[in-house]
């Protein structure tokens, strides 16, 4: 069995809404293995984003443990969490979230420049097929192009895991496929672990493992022995 890089046990997240407490996660056990592509499925409001935020060190669990190798993420203070995000995690969001005032190249450099072992920016630009648009600002790029920049930016830090929250949510089918293919390729070439959130069941067929969240709990887990190629995804 492959070695695990991230192990979460009994993860709970409580939000306080005025007088009432809302549990977004109600006790989730989750292990992420090296070079694995996991898809987190679930309806809207099931806790997908909350889970990924915990995994990426964006937020702290209310209860439960989260171990990154030897590091106890759940015990980290703010500076240590920042350190963790800086060196180990690459985020990709649904709405690309590029810095509007920085060019494509600069957005990618923004990721590279704080990491301890970054990848080459020009190289990444070529890999996502945007070498000729490197000096364009986000407003001059289409949605798909922007998301490619975002992926390159996440990758530039050379993190151990990539966390993508509905990266294709705002894109059409061919563009979406292109993005998924990129994620897969990077998983293979740079041996990253990828966690991909979606509520699109079709996309989940591309995963090694599928986790289905419902109402803050894991409803079921499915080991997928024959992941399909991104080109075969439909929606």
């Amino acid at each position, binding site marked *: 069995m492959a070695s695990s890089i991230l192990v979460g046990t009994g993860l709970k997240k409580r939000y306080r809404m005025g007088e009432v407490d809302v549990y977004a996660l109600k006790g989730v056990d989750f292990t992420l293995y090296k070079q694995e592509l996991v898809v987190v499925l679930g309806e809207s409001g099931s806790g997908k984003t909350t889970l990924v935020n915990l995994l990426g060190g964006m937020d702290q669990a209310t209860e439960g443990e989260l171990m990154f190798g030897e590091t106890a993420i759940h015990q980290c203070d703010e500076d240590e969490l920042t350190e963790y*995000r*800086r060196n180990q*995690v690459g985020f990709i969001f649904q709405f690309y979230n590029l810095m*509007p005032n*920085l060019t494509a190249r600069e957005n990618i450099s923004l*990721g590279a420049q*704080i990491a301890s072992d970054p990848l080459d920016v020009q190289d990444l630009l070529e890999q996502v097929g945007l070498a000729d648009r490197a000096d364009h600002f986000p*407003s001059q790029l289409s949605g798909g192009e922007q998301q490619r920049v975002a992926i390159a*930016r996440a990758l530039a830090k050379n993190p151990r895991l990539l966390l993508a929250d509905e990266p294709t949510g705002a894109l059409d089918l061919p563009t979406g496929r292109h993005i998924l293919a990129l994620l897969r390729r990077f998983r293979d070439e740079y041996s990253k672990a990828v966690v991909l959130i979606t509520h699109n069941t079709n996309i989940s067929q591309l995963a090694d493992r599928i986790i289905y969240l419902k109402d803050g709990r894991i409803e079921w887990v499915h080991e997928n022995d024959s992941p399909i190629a991104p080109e075969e995804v439909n929606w």
Partner: protein
Amino acid sequence: MILWRKMMRDMWGNLGSYLACLVLVVIGMVAFLAFAIASNNMAVSKDILYREQNFAEGFAELVAMPEHYVERVRRMDGVAQATGRLVRDVQVYDAEGAASVYLRLVSLDLQEHGRLNDVLLLKGEPLAARELKGWLDQRFFHANDLELGETIRIIAGGRVRELVVGGVGTSPEFVYPMRTEAEIYTDPQRFGIAFVPAQAMWQLFTDYDRAFNSLVFSLEPGADFERVKERLELELERFGVLEIYPRVDQTSHFVLTEEIEVINTMATFFPVIILMVAGFIIYIVLRRLVEQQRGQIGILKAFGYGKRQIMFHYLSYSLALAAVGGALGGLIGMWLANPLTDMLYEFFHLPPVYTGFSASALATSILICVGVLGFAGYHGCKAVLRLTPVEAMQPPAPPVGRRNLLEKFPLLARMLTVQGKMALRNISRSRSRTAFVFFGLMISCAMVAFTWALATEAMPKFMFYQYEQVETHDAKITLDGPRRRHSIHRELQGLPDVSLAEPMAEVPVKLSHRWRRENVLLIGLLPQARLYNILDVDGRRVIPGDDGLLLSQRLADNLAVGIGDTVELESLYLRDIYDKVEVDVVAIVPQYMGMNAYMGIAGLEELLGQEAFATSFLVEFVGGPGPERERVTALRELYRESDLLAGVDSRLEQLDLMVEYWEEAGWIIVLYVAIGVVFSFAIIYISSLVVLSERQRELASMRVLGMSSGEVFSVITFEQWLIGVVAVVAGAPLGRVILGAFAQSWSTDMYTMPAEMSAQSLLAGVAITFAAIWASQRFALRKIRRLSMVAVLKARE
């Protein structure tokens, strides 16, 4: 670093606000450095002059004291050095006789070593003991285009003499020569100092053979002035000591110190105000920026940028401005400091001292800017610290604030247009911006109202009241001392040109009430005097009676007396000079220039135990002074050689001087009004820019809905007018308060600034502020016309 590029582009995108901020910082720093350096230069130059020329620490005026007695004073306890002088004012004989020109002759003992108040000879030759040759003060010399070797004809001891100009010099005592303390402006063309050998002076003024009427002294280290003064008063009593005062009360020193003080105040006051505004702008701008870039902050956090790193990124917007502004302002300020110093030196004729480039001054200015803007910037973007990464990624929680105005007044809500409602909501939502606009407009309105009142009411009243309302004569004839008045009165009254002549007695007295004392001139007038009118606050005539004093308001305040109180009076004019008499206060009247007491002339004579006398006469000519004031000139001509007369002054001439001074000072008022206008303009313009970029999407959506840019803009203008109206309501009274404070701080024993503000000035403040609001809105409207709907709506936040 990549984030620097982001910063540059962010700033470029909102250039207006940052540029306004930068300009303010630069102006603030220029003002700070230029004024600070100039005042420092002046102070250093002053100190050098004082030290090198042995400026005295004490001054005594007396009737007459024998020359040899100075030696005794020198040996007194506490006195380090003493110098005696004879000081006499003489009139310059002017062939055309158009204006009265006076010279103050100050004797110099050529033998004395370590002379106090020594003259720094700038050019010319040494003086010789018995020769009537003198050194002139620089101002007079230059103002009259004199040359060395030229002669000036003066009238001394009833005869015309020729004074040779032997040199030009400056003395610490007369850096700023003034003929009387009550003058606010001395025309260097008409009054100057001439330093003449004592021997020559004694030959001119035979009454003062080997005698002095002025004594200056310096103190031994650690000696107390008051103690020395007491001892001197005793010692000199028999020589008729008139007054002994310390250096701080010496006119020239007082004016010079005051001037340096004013420049110093300018060096702090202006920059503080300006930097505060700049700080406020950067605060508003950064706060908005951080709110707006919430998502971007989230990404930076998600990517592992620490909160301090992000904080520093936003802080660097203000720090960059501070550094650039501070450096630029510092350099320009230093560059302007010397021309400014030159202007001041030219005015005061101080020996020039300059400051070159100073790295520490530059560092100070940058440090101040970094401090102020850093502080403002920190508060503007400290929200970054509170924002957790997850929060940052989500849209901001809707403000759960107090109920806004609309909810409180549903009726009001129904009356308003959609734009009005939006405006009201904006006001209650962004409190700090509302406060910024409110205070800015309030202050500029107050400033305009204040300056307006100062320019159109207070200053004219102050300057012209005395010579238009109170004194209404055509000429004032000053006698060389108290003289029997009836015969002179008859003589003057008998002159063909003269329609009316009135005697006036000006008596130096010391008034005291409990422990308070004041040395003033008590003026005796005929009860029916028409050429010198004492008026009450409402402009009604007050008749100087024979059995009580009229006091000026300031004098009454200083003595802490009211109507009905009794004061003690001492005077060298009393028949028994050691006597003290009691007089009642019967009225208190306003007086803006000078500080006097008044009484009926007959009553005054009786009080002093003297026969009818006068020290001057006021005359009115048949048909006024005539063209070119020829009748005044004729009168001067008539009495030129009389040793009874010290001078003939024309009231209109005095008035002209005031007008001249007023015209020179006028630009300062214009400057203040301009600052007020620029202030309101900048505030409104910046607030428009901020609202524009804050609500871009909202405004663009409204345009998409089919509203014109004017209608869209009315959301912003409505908000501004609303705040503006409230601000001027608060600002106008504030202007009145400022005027009151200004008048109080400006007023001295010699001048009292009236602090009245009419509705007209208040209206001017309001009108000019509104005009500035209107004008700046026109500018902002141009920006909204250029707003591209497509670009705005496409860009995600």
